[in-house]
């Protein structure tokens, strides 16, 4: 069966520090992968999506970047975090029957 893993679950980072969030998928090949961010009490904003290795599309200009080094791995990064980067980050794998989400990472930038 297909599963999606995301870690860490919680992260507290100082302003200006780097960030790396990882997402991996099991049980499928060549998945379409997505990073969403959810601000407190808000909806989901699409940040990046990838349809294959090395292929990244950015939806909004921001302080973050994404990479797809392997078929089933999707990484969200930042060189220097801002306070406004705080939020709940969700990795998703989307197929014809919708999106399957990882457990999410709650990032607090202090």
């Amino acid at each position: 069966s297909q599963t999606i893993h995301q870690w860490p679950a919680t992260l507290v980072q100082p302003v200006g520090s780097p960030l790396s969030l990882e997402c991996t998928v099991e049980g499928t090949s060549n998945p379409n992968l997505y990073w969403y961010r959810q601000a407190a009490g808000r909806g989901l904003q699409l940040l990046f999506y990838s349809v294959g290795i090395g292929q990244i599309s950015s939806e909004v200009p921001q302080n973050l970047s994404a990479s797809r080094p392997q078929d089933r791995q999707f990484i969200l990064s930042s060189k220097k975090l801002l306070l406004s980067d705080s939020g709940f980050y969700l990795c998703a794998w989307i197929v014809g029957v919708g999106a399957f989400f990882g457990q999410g990472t709650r990032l607090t930038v202090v």
Partner: protein
Amino acid sequence: ELKVEQNPLFLSMQEGKNYTIYCNYSTTSDRLYWYRQDPGKSLESLFVLLSNGAVKQEGRLMASLDTKARLSTLHITAAVHDLSATYFCAVDTGAQKLVFGQGTRLTINP
């Protein structure tokens, strides 16, 4: 650009009552999804609606899709406390990207 709007955004209701959450979207799509999110948790898939007139039911929840009106509804019958959560609709843009509504925070009181 596809816009998805839910209403109401906040809903407080008593156990045993019926209510409906509405999801309107701005451009043509025949794929719509409903998700549930508990506080601090990731999103859980509830319904997948893939054609005009589609109706799906699970327990006290029923979802429907009218692609001509660009409207989906999530109906709650005889609400119980366990249904308290935030509910999101999401619409497929046609490129396997999902645009989410703002979410409806549902609180069911005894």
